[in-house]
């Protein structure tokens, strides 16, 4: 069954070894292989394909393991939702922020909670810099304009030197309205 990596705009060139299906004003980047077992290597292989598409225009990454019998039907049936999502993420990337792991595991419940609190305290301040944000228990995710990324990273450092900022990621956390 075709494996779908991402939804993009029409005119996207196919990455090596993959093909592009266009329908309903959208494009899907597809591989003719089954979903691999989710080893770390397989996850990174999926991620590298999606990251390779990011420079050309807005990208909606698929969840790892997404296969479907008919890619054209997928695009047609969900074209309104997917088109709106592409516009929401156009010109932006995802950044992640979480407490930098300490070399030692948390020695107490208090210490564990204090580490999580570092992430939560920063969240409101960082959300101001972002188009959208998601607060997971252990990390925040932020949809940030490309030209605001450097300022965002600087703000993370100012807020708390024991926070780690990862990215730019494709906008996995912001594909749903």
């Amino acid at each position, binding site marked *: 069954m075709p494996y*779908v990596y991402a*939804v993009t705009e029409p005119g996207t060139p196919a990455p090596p070894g993959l093909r592009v299906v266009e329908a309903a004003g959208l494009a899907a980047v597809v591989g003719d292989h089954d979903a691999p*077992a*989710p*080893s*770390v290597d397989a*996850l*990174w292989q*999926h*991620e590298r394909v999606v*990251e390779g598409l990011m420079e050309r225009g807005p990208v*909606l*990454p*698929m*969840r*790892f*393991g*997404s*296969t*479907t019998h008919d890619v054209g039907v*997928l695009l047609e049936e969900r074209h309104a939702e*997917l088109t709106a*999502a592409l516009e929401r993420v156009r010109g932006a990337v*995802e950044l*992640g922020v*979480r407490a*930098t*792991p300490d070399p030692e595991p948390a020695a107490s419940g208090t210490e564990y909670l204090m580490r999580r609190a570092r992430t939560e305290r920063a969240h409101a301040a960082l959300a101001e810099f972002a188009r959208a944000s998601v607060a*997971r228990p*252990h*990390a925040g*995710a932020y949809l940030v304009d490309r030209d605001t990324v450097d300022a965002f990273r600087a703000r993370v450092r100012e807020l708390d030197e024991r926070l*780690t*900022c*990862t*990215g*730019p*990621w*494709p906008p*996995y*956390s912001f*594909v749903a309205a």
Partner: protein
Amino acid sequence: MNDDVALVDLLDRLLGGGVVIHGDITLAVADIDLVHISLRAVLASVEALTCPTSTP
């Protein structure tokens, strides 16, 4: 992508985010092994439990 990426960052996104095609849930158990649960199968089971007169 910087060097501080941890496995949790990757899993949050590739397994917890992204566009979902079907209502399938894949759960990670002990790093690599997966339990794959089809939402359709779960919903069918719930329906069978709550509507005992209907045939599954």
